């Protein structure tokens, strides 16, 4: 496979002087894996994906055995006389029904139940006001991400809010709750490393919560087509250890007090936070 990629990809691509980014060298398998999981619950999604994959491989193997096996066995030179049957014997109907029921209960309802449990108990279980969470308001616009932290007073849309552009910094080990909306067209707030996305829709507020577990530098993407420069609508995501985060936030809040211009109307794009 790697060889094939090398032959087709690099040798024939006459890239001589182009500023093409050089792909990091790693094995094909490593390339195919999703990005590092940095969230507490991302593994639920990875696990369900793998589980479904095993079931799919099993059933698709059955299909292939039928398809290729029968094609081989019943080629007309090998098997000149076809059997005359409508497939309406009791046995045939039982087999078809068993396959249908096995797929429905063995695969479908099985993964539906798991997905439903994960969804209702984890991803759609929203943190309440009683919990200590980090709150961030997100405003998407063509083609950038605006982030807003409540600042020293803990209230959103006041003149001490910390505002950043395409630069999200969050702590690990604590739930981060995002409220998201859009200024112009529909965008989608996608954190590949946390396996989650939610649309940013003008006129309504959507939510997402993530508990990060790994510190480092990552990327946020816009996943919904939003115009010509959709592909450039990326933001940086920095996850800090709690102490580092506290240091950064304190600095940013100080800076906001000094630098925010309360007279600038565009600054107040936020909204009153309600859980």
């Amino acid at each position, binding site marked *: 496979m790697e060889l094939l990629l090398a032959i087709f990809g690099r040798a024939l*691509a006459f890239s001589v002087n182009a500023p093409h980014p050089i792909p990091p060298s790693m094995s094909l398998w490593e390339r195919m894996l999703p990005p590092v999981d940095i969230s507490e619950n991302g593994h639920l999604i990875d696990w369900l994906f793998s589980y479904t994959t095993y079931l*799919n491989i099993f059933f698709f193997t059955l299909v292939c055995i039928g398809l290729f096996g029968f094609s081989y066995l019943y080629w007309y030179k090998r098997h000149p006389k076809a059997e005359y049957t409508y497939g309406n014997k009791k046995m045939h109907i039982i087999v078809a029904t068993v396959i249908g029921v096995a797929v429905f209960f063995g695969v479908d309802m099985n993964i539906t139940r798991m997905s439903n449990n994960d969804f*209702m108990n984890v991803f759609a279980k929203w943190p309440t006001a009683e919990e200590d969470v980090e709150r961030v308001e997100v405003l998407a616009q063509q083609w950038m991400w605006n982030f807003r932290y409540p600042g020293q007073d803990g209230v959103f849309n006041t003149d001490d809010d910390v505002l950043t552009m395409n630069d999200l910094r969050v702590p690990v080990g604590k739930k981060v709750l995002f409220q998201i909306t859009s*200024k112009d067209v529909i965008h989608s707030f996608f954190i590949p490393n946390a396996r*989650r*996305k939610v649309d940013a829709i003008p006129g309504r507020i959507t939510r997402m919560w993530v508990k990060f577990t790994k510190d480092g530098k990552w990327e946020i993407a816009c996943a919904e087509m939003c115009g010509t420069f959709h592909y450039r609508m990326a933001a940086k995501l920095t996850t800090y250890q709690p102490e580092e985060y506290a240091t950064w936030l304190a600095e940013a809040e100080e800076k906001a007090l000094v630098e925010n211009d309360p007279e600038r109307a565009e600054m107040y794009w936020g909204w009153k936070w309600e859980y």
Partner: protein
Amino acid sequence: MAFFEQHMHPVPKTFLSKYIFSFDHKVIGKQFLWYGIFFLGIGGIMALMIRWALAFPDQAFPIIGQFMFPETGGIIPPDTYAMLFTMHGTIMIFYAITPILIGAFGNFCIPLMIGARDMVFPLLNMLSFWLAIISGLLLVGSLFTPLGAAAGGWTSYPTLSTLIGSPGTGQTLWALAIFVLGVSSTMGAINYITTIIVLRAPGMGYFDMPLTVWGLWLTAILNAIFLPVLGAGVLLLIFDRVFGTQFFLAGAAATSGAGDPVLFQHVFWIFGHPEVYILILPAWGIVSDLLSFFARKPAFGAKATALSMTAVTVLSTLVYGHHMFTTQMSPLLTQSFMTLTMTISIPSAIFFANWLGTIWRGSIRFDSPMLFSLGVVFVFGLGGLTGLYLATVTTDLYLHDTYFVVGHFHYTMAASVLLGGFAAIYFWMPKMFGVMCNETLAKWHFWLTMLGLNGVFMGMMVVGYAGMHRRIYNPFIYEHLQRLIPINEFITWSAILMGLSQIIFVVNFVHTVFFKKEKATQNPWNVGTLEWTIPSPAPNYNFKEIPVVKCGPHEFSNPNLTTGRDFQYQTEELVKA
């Protein structure tokens, strides 16, 4: 209403009445075929340009790039890229697959296979084609407007598709083209449904119809119900764009009142999910028939297959919400749509079992239509199973709007339907044009296409799972996607292979239609359905005597047969021991 006998059309005398404004369903079918193949070519070249930009974003598109984009030295610019994928989707779905499978083979096969002399409304049929031409002109015309064609994706979600995101006339023309095409397809659908109900030959019950006709019939029903919904949606979009209404505007963008952009998504996907089945049902029907024809065996559980397809048709109207999980609708809706989506796999599993049952203990001939049909079973198996990841909401949160989705729906909608369409073309070629395609070229075409398309669509699912999201001009500005450069290059080379192998088809097709001298026999495949009881190509009036149907369409290898054939025509009494 029961059967009535149509009069015989007089043979058209002038060029205009014979080839252009023809009422004859066979000519209209061929017109749709050429129309579809023309747009398939355009959509295919667009696909190659998209793929080129994804693998080699900083290099000139070969051969035609220099002429098309002189300002950038042949490199596809980002705004053009957005137009390309929008137009690729629109053209392939509405202007290539729909005309070929439904327009061409619906028109051609339905009357011939049910023993009718023409569609029940020939004038409506002709209008349907000419409206499709007008729609095609509107769409192609939109490419030449000052700001270019529509660029909001084939789904054209507002508010991107309103004046906020797309100020150009291109988007309005796009909506208008879709509206006109919707009218055209609805006309066709009404015609198909009525024809099948009232014009079946005497003696032909619904379960005596070939499964091809079943597929086309169910498709026509979905078309008649849901295309008007899309029509209404794009009409509202046109109102928003042209007359300043605010159906789909909200938030800061709305100047007065408040609409809702998500409303359009509901309207779009109420149509859009059945549309997937509109495209695939004819292919399922064709495959169900061809597997039986070439395995020389009655279709296994034909009634169950027909009823499963009907069940899918009904269920397809109840599942559209799985396209909108990330808009964060009520969890109750999310749960319902997830569960309903899953139920579709019961009927799907049943007809899959039936397909395999059909070739089980058959006597299989690997002619090109059979190869393509087996190919459909393979790729639809992959496409159907990968749908599971997108139906369960949690995995969809990650995979939604990534290339995984793109790979999945190309397997179901593009690969299966394309292979089914090619199977149909190779199979009905003798009845349509009176000549047979070259088998060797057809087999080369099959194997190269299979190789190419699996490379492309499997590769897309791989990069999608690895995190590459959709509709991005240059994925490699993201650091975490740079490791996918080699895989993207591989996909592009596979796409080029798939594209080039279609040249084999075009050469074969054009040569066969225009230059081949050797005429096909009346029944080259030894099949018993009604269209093979008449000469090749089918005469102007189809059936001199309206046939009387006495047995089912899949009577093969009956041990009691004494005629020396291994099959029975539908006009013959079923031989019993």
